[in-house]
């Protein structure tokens, strides 16, 4: 075969691959949004789930998803940022550093169900936290830490050397330089990464199955006392999140409108993730403009 003909054919095949990829995304998003948005209504978002009857909503699950996300971020961000600072600023090349790097890599590539099993073993059973918001958030912390560490390390490495040298030349100590000069400068890129990782945490399900549980008490949204068993703020109650709910109604749901609930929840989930994505993207753009001075 003529090499020119081969060239044509091969390039069109490659083009087809890319088109297939784009088509998959469009059809998936289209399917979820078209099917799902019709089942989203104010009623759907503000009623609690009903175990047997049609017409149940996702109020509690939606709240739980956000609440677990917030608690996870409260735990992950400080630890993850400090870990990233270690790798970017303090780590000396050597055995310990490469071991810590390996550990971050291992944490990042462990299947989330393994993290969930670990969470069940340690937080749920050993620490006796039962199926709870806190157990779920702790498991997700293990799952999310490596992402934040990487984001922070990259953010710090992208900074100009002069900023650090300027701080040190003024006689500031190392920690003071990091705290007052480098961290604020790296903050925007870290924030972008954190928001992106929030989307990942928001959709996570396997790690929550055995840690946050498959049920949620009937939440009383007038009772904001964190110690009350049915308060939305209680971190020791079980909390089924939205993504777990999608799985649960599909595998064991006996209500007649399983399809509607699943499609609606999936649409809410995807829209939330898209919003996280958009915010991160816009933030990135704004920051880029600010720094490049356009």
């Amino acid at each position, binding site marked *: 075969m003529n090499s020119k003909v*081969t*060239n044509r054919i*091969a*390039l069109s*095949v*490659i*083009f*087809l691959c*890319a088109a297939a*990829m*784009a088509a*998959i*995304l469009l059809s*998936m*998003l289209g*399917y979820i949004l078209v099917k799902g948005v019709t089942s989203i209504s104010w009623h759907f978002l503000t009623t609690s789930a009903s175990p047997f009857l049609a017409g149940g909503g996702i109020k509690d699950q939606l709240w739980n998803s956000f609440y677990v996300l917030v608690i996870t971020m409260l735990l992950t961000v400080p630890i*993850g940022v*400090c*870990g990233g*600072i*270690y790798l970017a*600023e303090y780590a000396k090349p050597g055995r310990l550093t490469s071991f*810590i790097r390996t*550990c971050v890599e*291992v*944490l990042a*590539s*462990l*299947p989330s*169900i*393994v993290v969930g*099993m*670990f969470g069940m*073993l*340690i937080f749920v059973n050993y620490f006796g936290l039962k199926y709870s918001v806190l157990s779920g958030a702790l498991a997700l912390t*293990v799952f999310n*830490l*490596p992402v934040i*560490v990487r984001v922070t390390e990259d953010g710090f490495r992208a900074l100009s050397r002069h900023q650090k040298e300027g701080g040190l030349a*003024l006689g500031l*100590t*190392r*920690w003071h330089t990091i705290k*007052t000069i480098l961290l604020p400068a790296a903050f925007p890129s870290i924030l972008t990464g954190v928001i992106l990782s929030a989307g990942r945490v928001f*959709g*996570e*399900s396997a790690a929550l*199955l*055995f840690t946050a549980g498959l049920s949620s008490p009937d939440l009383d949204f007038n009772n904001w006392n964190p110690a009350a068993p049915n308060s939305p703020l209680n971190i020791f109650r079980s909390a089924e999140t939205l993504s777990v709910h*999608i*799985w649960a109604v*599909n*595998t064991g749901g006996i209500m007649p409108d399983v399809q509607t609930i*699943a*499609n609606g929840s*999936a649409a809410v*989930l*995807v829209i939330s993730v*898209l919003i996280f*994505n958009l915010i991160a993207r816009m933030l990135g753009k704004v920051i880029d403009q600010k720094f490049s001075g356009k």
Partner: protein
Amino acid sequence: MKVGSLNDAAPASEGKSKLINEKSFFGRFTDRASESRGKVIIYSSALLMIVAVVAITLFLTIQGLRSFVVDHLNFWTFITGTEWYPDRTKNPTFGAFPFIFGSLAVTFLAALIATPIAIGTAVFMAEIAKKWGTKVMQPVIEILVGIPSVVYGLIGLSIVVPFLRQHFGGTGFNLIAGAFVVGIMILPTVASIAADSLRAVPDSLRQASFAIGGTKWQTIWRVVIPAAGSSLLTAIILGMSRAFGEALAVQMVIGNARDLPKSILDPSATLTTIITLSMGHTTTGSLLNDALWSLGLILLLISYVFIVIIRFLGKRGESR
């Protein structure tokens, strides 16, 4: 404490300079302590990573070995046995081979489905249409990566399974449905890493190929892809490790049969799906519970194998 206060200090020239006498004796003391306090916070966060990995490995290993050490199951019959009937009152059997096989089958089939499209997309993005690639395909891929895995499972349940049922008979819940859903799921991961590795190939190689009259395709096939070699492989294996660890999306479509599948159109189960399904119903310390933890241990070990392969490929890529 802000750096900005240095600027404020300049106009206040009367009296002592703020730069030096900004803090009281006690303030200076805490500042000196803050240096070591910062160090402690940073180092303990870093150590926490090690603690997490060691704890996961250690506790899952101890718990996973219980069924062999405490309940005296035979390790060899556990991983090679094909009969998983833990709930039989008389002579329960624990043969995990169908699940190990199912996991590996789903992983390899998913890689088989995903690799051509993913690599094709990567080549498109990095070699053919660079502008389009970064403007359109990159966001597409980033959004796909962000879609939660249960959503992939749900789509499999409402599109792939009915499709298979109509065209191939049976229930539609089978091995290939699981592989297909996971294959689609790992597509964007593989594509974006592969594109990065193609972009890392130096332009001089391409120019040399064009200079001796190579067509675009000849350049891609004979020069760029071999040059990207091991990092392309890393992309595929990373995708496989994700496919291997996926639980809920697979569980929703694979059919959850405990027998060894005879063809790809048979319902089947994987390590992750059997754990997902049974773990919640068992009591801690029971024989079935211990056996499930052993499955978890196998899952962990195979994940480590993937990690080691990826690291090995990464090292080789670096040293070249």
